[in-house]
């Protein structure tokens, strides 16, 4: 029987919760011999909305886009180092676009057996729940999704790994 968790895709957004998700994904990859891919998406949609609302001007939007890309590289490098500390090599993917669509596309392209992500963000209203990125990813991807909670417990487990 082939490994049911052959490829695990980890989505990170730089939040503490996504770092917790990364720790669990690394532990799982090590325990079950999975291939792990970590992904960050520059949220172009959000920037476009702020431009449309005239909170941002065009130049500023482009400036923030570059900043977020740099943030993404930094977060992914951090995850690579976390994995390296546990003797694991991972692949990283940095994309720009509509977050849930990019994550769903990558999950399909790499034939992910599991998507791991951090806690869902708080929602401001029922309508808002449809716009929260974590929720959108849950609705969009076709593979199983693991939403990771319990930072303290996972951190202890990761340290003991």
């Amino acid at each position, binding site marked *: 029987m082939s490994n049911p968790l052959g490829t695990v895709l980890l989505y990170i957004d730089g939040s503490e919760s996504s770092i917790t998700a990364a720790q669990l994904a690394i532990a799982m990859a090590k325990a079950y011999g999975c291939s792990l891919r970590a992904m960050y998406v520059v949220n172009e949609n959000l920037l476009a*909305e702020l431009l449309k609302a005239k909170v941002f001007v065009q130049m500023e939007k482009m400036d923030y886009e570059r*900043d977020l890309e740099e943030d993404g590289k930094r977060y992914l490098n951090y995850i690579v180092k976390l994995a390296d500390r546990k003797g694991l090599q991972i692949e990283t993917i940095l994309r720009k676009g509509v977050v849930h669509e990019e994550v769903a596309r990558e999950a399909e392209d790499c034939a992910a057996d599991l998507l791991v992500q951090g806690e869902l963000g708080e929602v401001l209203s029922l309508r808002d729940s449809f716009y929260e990125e974590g929720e959108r990813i849950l609705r969009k991807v076709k593979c199983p999704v693991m939403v990771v909670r319990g930072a303290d417990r996972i951190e202890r487990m990761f340290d003991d790994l």
Partner: protein
Amino acid sequence: MRLTDYIGPEHIKLDLEGTDKQEVIEELVEHMSEHCSRCDADTLFEAVMNRERDGSTGLEKGIAIPHAKCDAVDKLRIVVGISKEGVDFEAQDGQPSHLFFLMIAPTTESGPHVQAIAKIVKMIKIDGFREKLLKAERPEQIIEAIERVENGEQ
């Protein structure tokens, strides 16, 4: 991210006295400077005014979100200000601005900065939220209103 991690009662100024855009921004950055170690008010003022020169951050319905990136702050800093009289902030609808969210973040913290701005833009669209903030008589009432929204209670 939760806005209430960044906004405490000390970050709220209910009685802005400025009568024009420049005076209001001065008051807001001075308030930020008082509650943020090593933030120089003049540097913050320059950063915000530079941004305003590219286009006003005065939105509709009396709201303005003046913001800037500036390494004079150690992390994302937010000050909420209310002007009872209202000032001409070159708003999109031409109406006076009453409710101000000043947001300044260092260049290395664009992620939280963008998220915080987006969250405020969403919040001010919620029925009754803007009115609740404008009616506040104490800073704690503003925190409570934001918390209620963040907890999904409104």
